[in-house]
């Protein structure tokens, strides 16, 4: 695409190595230089000229050093006399103090304006609460504005495309950081504090994220996705999420539901099914919460967005909007249920993360069947 090439050209002065970017992977889901929303676009617009200036200075200094070193090298036939013993030049000193200061003042001014611009959140924007805990992300929606959360979901943050969404980011245990590079810079999730962040996705699609504040064993395995839906699809999603789960007809799935009630409902909540109504204080974990699974099968990923719930049929490395609900990634789900700490480093002995529940194959089969019904 012309845009991509243009951006990469501007990077070239920054480092010779960057020139080789053209030859490397063309798939970079966490790329910070491919904005897909207005906030990320604002940052990118500020960053590009700054990189350009930095690139020019870089070239000047490196070439300058090389040129000076070459030109003033001691020649073999040198007479060993001293070169002119120049001590300094007030003019030069003032010049190269004031000029960079002015340049930086300009960059600083532009930065301040952008900072204030990014902090300006439209008043009526939809709000979603984002809560980080070891090692997954939870999202809570107060749809009717009555102070109670109507939708509680995990891993996939579903939003309507083309609309501004104000996130209110916090944590239940340690500091995490919420980051979807294509949409905006990151914001730390700090326990005891709430940090606002505006995001907006221009187009429907899937946008990858990664926890970016060291948070222990599975910091590297704590991803998330923003799933932007076309407005009509979003309305449908929103309505569906507020309904409880039905009792499954299928025998295996019904057995799975019973298994869920016995084993899983101590931490996980499936609404509409008589599980613990007040989930979040109930889960026997340090963070006090495990993912709400009422509409587990409506998501594309699980276990901190590191495993695909559905098979990536087109092989593009992502469970796209259309691939959800198609072909269940049974092997990944079974492996997870069989031994979660083996799939993702966690600390269940300290009540952080999901323990190995020693399930038999039959129990796992039943649970998988049940989970698949939780659309």
């Amino acid at each position: 695409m012309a845009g991509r090439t243009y951006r990469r050209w501007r990077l070239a002065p920054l480092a010779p190595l960057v020139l080789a970017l053209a030859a490397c992977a063309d798939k970079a889901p966490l790329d910070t230089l491919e904005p897909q929303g207005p906030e990320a676009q604002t940052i990118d617009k500020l960053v590009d000229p700054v990189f350009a200036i930095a690139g020019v200075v870089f070239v000047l200094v490196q070439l300058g050093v090389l040129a000076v070193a070459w030109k003033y090298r001691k020649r073999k036939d040198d007479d060993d006399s001293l070169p002119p013993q120049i001590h300094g030049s007030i003019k030069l000193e003032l010049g190269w103090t004031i000029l960079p200061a002015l340049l930086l003042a300009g960059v600083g001014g532009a930065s301040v304006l952008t900072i204030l611009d990014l902090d300006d959140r439209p008043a009526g924007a939809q709000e979603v609460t984002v809560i980080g805990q070891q090692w997954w992300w939870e999202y809570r929606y107060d749809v009717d504005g009555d102070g109670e959360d109507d939708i509680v979901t995990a891993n996939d943050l579903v939003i309507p495309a083309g609309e501004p969404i104000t996130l209110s980011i916090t944590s239940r245990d340690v500091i995490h950081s919420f980051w979807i590079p294509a949409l905006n810079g990151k914001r730390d999730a700090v326990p005891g504090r709430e940090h606002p962040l505006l995001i907006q996705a221009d187009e429907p699609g899937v946008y990858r994220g990664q926890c970016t504040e060291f948070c222990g064993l599975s910091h590297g395995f704590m991803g998330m996705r923003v799933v932007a839906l076309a407005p009509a699809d979003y309305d449908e999603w929103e309505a569906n999420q507020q309904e409880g789960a039905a009792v499954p007809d299928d025998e295996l799935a019904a057995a799975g539901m019973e298994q869920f009630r016995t084993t899983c409902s101590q931490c996980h909540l499936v609404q509409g099914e008589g599980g613990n109504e007040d989930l979040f204080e109930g889960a026997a974990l340090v963070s006090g919460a495990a993912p709400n699974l009422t509409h587990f099968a409506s998501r594309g990923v699980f276990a901190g967005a590191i495993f695909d719930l559905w098979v990536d049929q087109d092989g593009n490395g992502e469970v796209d909007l259309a691939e959800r609900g198609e072909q269940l990634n049974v092997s990944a789900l079974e492996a997870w249920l069989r031994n979660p700490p083996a799939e993702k480093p966690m600390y269940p002995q300290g009540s952080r993360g999901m323990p190995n529940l020693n399930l038999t194959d039959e129990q796992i089969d039943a649970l998988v069947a049940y989970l698949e019904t939780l659309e």
Partner: protein
Amino acid sequence: MAIVERPSDVLALPPGGLVTHSPLGVFARPRAKTGWRAWVSTVDHKRIGIMYGVSALFFLVIGGVEALLIRAQLAAPDQKLLSADLYNQVFTMHGITMIFLVVMPMGAAFMNYMIPLQIGARDVAFPRLNALSFWTFLVGGIFLNSSWFLGGGADGGWFAYAPQTGVIFSPSHGMDFYAIGLQITGIASLVGGVNLVVTVLNLRAPGMTLMRMPVFTWMSLVTQVLLVFAMPVISVALFLLTFDRLFDANFFNVAQGADPLLWEHLFWIFGHPEVYILILPAFGIVSEIIPVFSRKPIFGYPFMVFSGIAIGFMGWGVWAHHMFASGLGPISVAAFSVSTMFIAVPTGVKILNWMATLWGGKITFSTPLLFSVGLVAMFTIGGLSGVTHAVAPADTQQTDTYYIVAHFHYVIFGGALFGFLGGFYFWWPKVFGYVLNDKLGKVHFWLTLVGFNLTFGPMHILGLQGMSRRIPTYRDGYGFNLWNAVATVGAFVIALSVLVFFVNIVRSKRQAPSLPPPGPDPWDARSLEWSIPSPTPDHNFDDDPVVTQLDDFWHRKYGEDEQGRMVPIATAEEIAMPGDPSRSHLPAPSYWPIVLSLAFPLIGYGLIFNLAIAAVGGAVLLGGMVGWALEPPDDEDLPPHGHDDHDDDGTAAAEPEAVATQEEVTAGD
């Protein structure tokens, strides 16, 4: 030419005229002049400097192995060489080791050895405290690393954000070793800071005003002042963490109302001045080397001094640029973004002044010069990426990614370490009496330059493509594969370059007897340390040098002729001091510094494992302080208050034992 003796120990200074006397009860001062006892009881700033240097290089190997483990793990996606738990320990210890146990002590090595020489002094203001600083640092570093064998290394990152580092989320003892270990090394830094500030302010030779000091001494002074003010802040942060972990305090207990940002603020108020502590000594070294090998004075001496002071001051006003994504609010973010941008100005002034020094010179590409020019080039890259971070909105995309890893390795490795490597080659003949092989030195330089850029250059790309820091592995299909592989190759090239350095040391030492001695001034340099024999005599200067201008030594070698051109008027050998110790009186050695330093790890182990050990440590602390205070002064002929070392007629009261020193033998040349 007279036959010269060469020291038999690998790195030992030749036996010198240290004062000894008969014992006074149990607190007799040690008498050894050679062997391990001499080193353990030394209060000589030169031996202490060498020990700092050796220790730093030892920890460099440890930190380097940790780096190689990281790079091996990250060479390809989805690897499982290191478990996530072990990886967290390795990257944490790598950071702690490199910052606190390599770069800081390496700076200390140069500052301890060179400051008294550059200001024309006999030693530092408090020689025993100086020894205490070194031993405390060493036991602190060993204490920190003993965690590997005692339940696991620290695993919360070198920056140790709370509440992750509390007992709930970091249940192993690793973070206790971190908190207590850094307190111990912090004591070393603080004591050293007080010592060197007093030294530079008080012990300058007659005529050496502040604006006649070499740039290295100036940068060291700013560094020590920064240390004195920054260490207490992290000390408080570490106390709060320790009290939380060991005594159930509530400083970072969110349920009890804590705000985790308190840790971040305290840590970075220390942490930002800390990075200037890391870089300023290397800036000073490079400011010594470039003029010598360009054969011109440093361009803009006053501006070099004032920009260093400016960096020292301004460094206190930028700390929250490490917190742009932490939820500070737009006003704070904007303020720190602007202040961070302006700190680039004095740094840029330095880069341009170094280039202007090279300009119009006659440049010899010796190994020290190569590393110095390398610093100019590499630090510029790191500084430029730093300016891009200062743009706070950009930083919200860059922070906690490999783009930041690239930035700080360019400034710390490409800056501080390059400067130190240049310093090793530059000052080696002065310290050890032989030159490091320049050809092998150039191999060392080029391997380092190539390996370093191969490792950290691609990390700019990785960061901008979204690779997070502190992740034990990455998935396929994120665009991270190629550059991680390249970076791993680069890391092993760096390892090779370090090996070449050690080989050079050993080979140069072996070849030295067959080469002419370097003499006092092998490089035709400018500052006072080159006006005395090589290796430096124990007593430094035969008499107080009298200084009349900046680069006084240089101006005694070169003067203006009738046409106003600078021409040689004397050789270094002619004006250098011959090395006659008879008019000098050295401070006596002491065992109390090392004894006292042992109290700290005992208290540390006690706090972690068993309070009985801490009680023993406390006893050693008290006993050590008492012994130190009651130790007899330098000479038994002295009056009780122990400071008069001369009679009224001005002659030295105690003759140092006359030992045929190398200097005296060569003085006749």
